[in-house]
């Protein structure tokens, strides 16, 4: 499967995603936000950055980009859609994932290495990992605090849609290990059908040892359907 990496005005991790995918042997296609086609054999990546300056609310304006119709249609057809950081925010704004991402509890932008606990390896995005495995992935966001109504949170839990939670180096999901105040320490979720992933941490920044680690590879490979498919 090939990835289409969507470029919104203000995206700034698009080239990083392309680079990481190339490191993993993929050759993605860059898709400008004004385009209207996602091919039926493509997966979609909505990369990080500040689409439309993140003005108003992160992802609020990007959601109305022409390409988003096609992304929605692709998701509805069951194609893979991955939203990373700003991409996650866009997916929530667009209603492809439930909930919303709000200002970090500490009110600061945070760029650092976070630890994630893999909650559910029975998903294509986590198939390279084991339950409870701890991953080291960078975060870089000012609005990554996941919020949803209590019933939505319950449903996420019940349906095992929470794929990653912030934890400490030992894998303990604690309040202290939560960098942004997210409900239930949520770092990444999938939709019910299992083809849409949204996560605040950046797997594309963790695909090469020189960049500080390779824990993110499995997520991108899994999304591409490579390696341990389920």
């Amino acid at each position, binding site marked *: 499967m090939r990835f289409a990496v969507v470029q919104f005005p*203000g995206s*700034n991790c698009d080239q*990083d995603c392309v680079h990481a995918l190339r490191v993993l042997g993929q050759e993605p296609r860059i898709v*400008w936000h*004004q385009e209207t086609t996602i091919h039926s054999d493509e997966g979609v990546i909505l990369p990080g950055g500040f689409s439309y*300056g993140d003005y108003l609310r992160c992802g609020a304006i990007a959601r109305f980009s022409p390409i988003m119709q096609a992304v929605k249609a692709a998701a509805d057809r069951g194609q893979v859609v991955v939203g990373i950081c700003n991409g996650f925010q866009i997916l929530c704004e667009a209603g492809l994932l439930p909930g919303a991402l709000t200002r970090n509890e500490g009110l600061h*932008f945070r*760029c650092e290495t976070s630890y994630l606990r893999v909650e559910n390896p029975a998903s294509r995005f986590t198939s390279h990992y084991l339950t409870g495995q701890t991953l080291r992935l960078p975060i*870089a966001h000012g609005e990554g605090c996941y919020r949803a109504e209590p019933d939505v949170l319950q449903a996420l839990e019940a349906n095992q849609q929470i794929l990653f939670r912030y934890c400490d180096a030992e894998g303990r999901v604690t309040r202290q290990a939560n960098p942004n105040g997210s409900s239930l320490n949520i770092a990444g979720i999938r939709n019910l059908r299992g083809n849409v992933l949204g996560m605040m941490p950046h797997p594309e920044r963790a695909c090469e040892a020189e960049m*500080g680690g390779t824990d993110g590879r499995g997520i991108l490979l899994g999304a591409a359907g490579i390696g341990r498919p389920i």
Partner: protein
Amino acid sequence: MKPKEFALSLGLTEEEYGRIEKGLGREPNENELGMFSVMWSEHCSYKNTRRELKKFPTTGPAVLVKAGEENAGVVDAGDGLALAFKIESHNHPSAVEPFQGAATGVGGILRDIFTMGARPVAFMDALRFGRPEAKGEAGKRTRSLIKGVVEGISHYGNCVGVPTVGGELVLDPAYEGNPLVNVFCLGTLRHDQIRRGAAKGVGNPVFYVGAKTGRDGLAGAAFASRDLTEESKADRPAVQVGDPFVGKLLFEACLELYARPDLVVGVQDMGAAGLTCSTCETASRGGSGIEIELDRVPQRETGMTPYETLLSESQERMLIIVHKGREKELKEIFSRWGLDAAEIGYVTDTGRVVVKQSGKVVADVPARLLADDAPVYEREAKVPAKLAERQKLDLRKILPAQPRLKEDLLKIANSPATGSRRWIWNQYDHMVGLRTVVRPGGDAAVLRIEKPGGGWVHVAMTLDGNGRWCAQDPREGSKALVAEACRNLACAGAVPLGLTDNLNYGNPHDPEIFWQLREGVEGMAEACRAFDLPVTGGNVSLYNQSPAGPIHPTPVVGVVGKVEEGVKLVPGVFGSGLGVALLLGKSESGGLGASLYLQEVHGQIAGKPAPADLESEKRLHRLMRSVLKESGIRAVHDVGEGGILWALAEMTFGPESAGAEVDLPLGSKERVEEALFGEGGGRILLEVDEAAVTAIEHLAKEAGVGCRTIGRTGGNVLRVKCGGEDVSWEVRELRGMFEESLPRALES
């Protein structure tokens, strides 16, 4: 108002007015005077400092674009790869509105870099404020300045997707009334992609691209006129608001435009003095003229006068000259990125900048007169009357009879002046772009840059300044900071390629201040020559003073270097397991003059900084680079502020919190405090495997550099013996203080 009176009200002198009249051959009108007042200001013309700047060495085999030629200097990094970099200050705007002041500072330096044809890949920021833990209003104001400035840099830098990979923060009462915000940007390009800011080719169209023009920045020093001041102050904003979103679109669009073969003739950003500066500079560089029509300038506000349009400092705008017939391509690219692109004029051969509004000439000035013929002044310089007094240092009056090393180090560890800067760089995206190999927190940041033909070049960079050293001895202090910057690069195995400097001083009309500046420039120039290091550009920021007095003389240097082939990068902190601690370089401390120790522990700034020994520094740096090619090197950190003891403490602040047990040399006439806290340069600490020691000793001997085994690393205690003293600290305790001191001070 008569033209002459108007000129004086704009800050031009009588003599300058005469010069303008003579150059024009007639009375200038108000628009023209406005243009001269900004172009001939210190900020744009360097009229007070140009003679001094000439003292810098600016040539060398690696220099592709020299200082002063274009918006930023460019150096060769090998393999067809070039690096453009420069530093810029935004001190006064940040004092008024810290968030927007700092943000627009980032935007400004960003434009200087992509104007050169380079893709911006890294920022660094050098910040100076008063003490955040100060009581009362002063502390409150400082805290809000720090928070605002850091947020502003974070806002702009993160949004444009250029990582901020390093910088400095200095907290000293000398900056309380006048903070310093200096921002550095580095860009990468191929040799054949270098762009020039010259308007050439008669008839070629001149485009205005980017954000619309408003009345931003008009209430600055250059703004004053009877007609205009009658309007309400409310809509005359001195505060420029940056739009990083448009900044990002602008550089992507420009880079896309440059990639089209033979399309662009010249580019120039609109920074200070906006349209005025960009038209007259491009015309002057091209030996041509430019004619523009102001009605075609995209405007955000209605009813702007020619004066306002010409002098507006609205952000995120560029001037681009393309080959005739290629207009459509430019328009297509900019419209795709959702940006305005307006053809506002064309290149002429008259040598004049002619400005029209609604077809009527509103200004007509020789480009060279405006851009290059500003007067140059020789300012008076005088040794400060109190300098000799301040340089005296009698340690017997300051130090206690019995050393109190234990407390001394705790005091330093607990001070926000030395605490971890994590609170700052966690707010900066320092990883975006996938180039940051060595992240903030160490001696130098290292980026990997893709070579034109594939593969990576590793580039190291650092910002350094030390106002305290320079206050006590501007010449030696400036030399020492260049040496320190080069030493930082050596710790990353890099050979310095070029230096950019920001000269932050007080009012140059004060002879004592001008003396500081001249000494500073001469000291830096001497050090640069010693290191074969060309100055490729920089910035001057004067008048940094408040009613409480001038700031410390504060030159800040940014040095960029290339990591040598074969070097293995190592962290600046001890790893796990047991290793050997080595000290490379001098065994003398250089004494406590102008030291952080005296300021933080004894509340005094006294004495002279240790003079830099440039020859031995060079040998040390060369040795360091070859040592880093050996195996078994675990950690490297240079000795700087806080002396060898603080450098050791910093090395224990790694993820492992590993300690060390060392025996440190004491000079024959030294007090133990001097040995431990003296800031003399020329020293580097290493942690190595036992097995590597012999090879390093051998290399050091060959290089003629001292190498001494001072102890062992490991454990959870830092234990130091020196001159009969034997003191230990719990690493965890020190580290806790180090991590907490700055955030705590900011929350107070």
